[in-house]
């Protein structure tokens, strides 16, 4: 796994680059001299290709947005139109006016926040223990965390739900956030491990020489250095919980239902109310899309690391 992650770390030249021709390092990468297209005509064609791909890729979500501003009747008009004939917020007022919708937003936020905090509190020390003291148990642990990723949620959802019920936590955001943490914790451990890996060891050594305890060095010296990494990990844990559906479906009833379950329920409970569904889906998706686009640079770095490791 280590060589694979090396190969995808954008900041770190892979070993064969640095060994073949050290002076060329600045110009490493396929860009510039390798793959980057030279001729003007080729470049124009490629830009047109990219534009076409972006339109195709962006269109589905734009269509969802446009549809959410149509009148409820126009949403299912035959043949459908791309743009609304008449722009209205009716779908939004309908969707948000439904009983349980606003409550589900609060549940989603609560669940995601608890799960994020729980993931970080558990993952940060564990990842530090794994990367700083390369003990055999640490290596076993990180492999075990990887295997956890393969467990299908449908397989543990029901036993988890009955465990929660037996301790009186049935249908609560706490129970659901614990379930979500089973997904985000392994990912968070992998992510945090790679962030700790990049912290120079001398830093804590200097701190311990100055009389800091090991825990003190972690808390006062290392944690501040990796705070950016912690933020990225937090975003991933938050997103994992925010978008999760299966555990939410299995473990919540009326009280702690999150918005994805409510969106899915629109289909059965109220017939096929496409207008409200698209409006609610838009309201649920846009904040996270904007947030991640704003923080994109950090997230891209984290995603490549997490992707390759977790």
């Amino acid at each position, binding site marked *: 796994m280590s*060589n694979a992650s090396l190969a995808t770390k954008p900041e770190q030249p892979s070993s064969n680059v640095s060994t073949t021709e050290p002076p060329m390092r600045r110009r490493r990468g396929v860009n510039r001299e390798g793959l980057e297209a030279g001729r003007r005509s080729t470049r124009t064609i490629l830009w047109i290709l990219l534009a076409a791909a972006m339109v195709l890729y962006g269109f589905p979500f734009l*269509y969802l947005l446009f549809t959410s501003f149509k009148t409820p009747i126009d949403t299912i008009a035959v043949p459908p139109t791309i743009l609304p004939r008449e722009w209205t917020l009716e779908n939004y007022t309908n969707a948000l006016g439904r009983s349980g919708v606003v409550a589900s937003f609060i549940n989603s936020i609560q669940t995601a926040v608890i799960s994020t905090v729980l993931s970080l509190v558990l993952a940060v020390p564990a990842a530090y223990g794994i990367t700083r003291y390369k003990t055999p148990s640490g290596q076993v642990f990180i492999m075990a965390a990887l295997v956890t990723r393969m467990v299908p949620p*449908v397989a543990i959802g029901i036993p988890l739900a009955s465990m929660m019920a037996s301790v009186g936590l049935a249908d609560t955001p706490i129970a659901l956030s614990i379930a979500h943490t089973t997904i985000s914790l392994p990912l968070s451990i992998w992510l945090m491990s790679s962030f700790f890996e990049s912290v120079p060891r001398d830093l804590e050594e200097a701190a311990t020489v100055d009389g800091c305890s090991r825990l003190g060095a972690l808390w006062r010296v290392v944690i501040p250095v990796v705070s950016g990494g912690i933020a990225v990990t937090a975003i991933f844990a938050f997103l994992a919980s925010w978008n999760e559906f299966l555990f939410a479906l299995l473990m919540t009833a009326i009280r702690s239902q999150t918005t994805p379950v409510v969106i899915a329920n629109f289909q059965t409970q109220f017939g096929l109310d496409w207008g409200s569904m698209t409006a609610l889906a838009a309201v649920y998706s846009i904040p996270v899309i904007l947030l991640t686009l704003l923080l994109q640079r950090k997230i891209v770095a984290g995603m490549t690391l997490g992707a390759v490791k977790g």
Partner: protein
Amino acid sequence: MRISDRRFALYLMTPAALFLAVFVAYPLFRLVADSFFKISPIAGGPRDFVGFQNYVTAFTSEAFTNAGWRTLAYTLVVVTLEFALGLGMALLFTTLGKKSQIWRTVFLYPLMIAPIVAGLLWKFLMIDNFGLIGTLLHQAGILSDPNQIGWLSDPNIVLFSVAIPDIWLTTSFMCLVLFAGLQNIPGDLLEAARLDGARAPALLFRIILPLLRPVIAVALVVRGIDAARAFDTILIQTNGGPQSASETMSLLIYRTMIRFGDPGLASAMGTIYLLAMLAIAFVAVATIWRPGKDN
């Protein structure tokens, strides 16, 4: 000093390990245990030990074997298309260089969208009668009737249709990982090959792909595991229908448990499913990735 360091590391890992033991390992143990019982779906109902009966039922049921094949086909379709599209986009972004950076970011947006929303969105595009895709193809003169292709209602193609949202959601992920890998291929190497007269296909197949191998392997395995567990997008689009034609393993287990009220059988299916995933992932990792060869 050594030992106390070791102990300190152990203390740091203990909370997370305990958490995973209680909330992942124990439920898994319960799952396996339940698979040997005939369980009444009513809480507190009877629970009779039946040995391997549930496993026999699972393996002899057509629904189970069909769901297994469907899951495999679904995973292969999703991962193959994602890889091809993701590599194409990664190469496109790489050849366009720095100026394409903002588009690279925009290209990532589906990764933030909940799978349930993506499934809903594509269902809306593909649905019979008022789906936009059929209408557009009709207006372009490709289809004689907007409903000529029953994307989600024709049992022969539905398994591919339900895969589309999954592909749309995570091609960005493939692209991102492959793009990062491409940045680490030494430009001089490509330049040298080009001077030697290598053309684009040779560059791709002889140099780029072999060098990307570890990255490709990890990306394929990670995405393969996720695709094999797909649930949200399929449930919202077809609920496994029509005629179970899009019922993959996750859906079958879910329905066996919830709709047909047979937790024992569902647990047996879940256990087989998990073991199969572990076995396939292990083989995949061992063959394509070849770990432990640090250079």
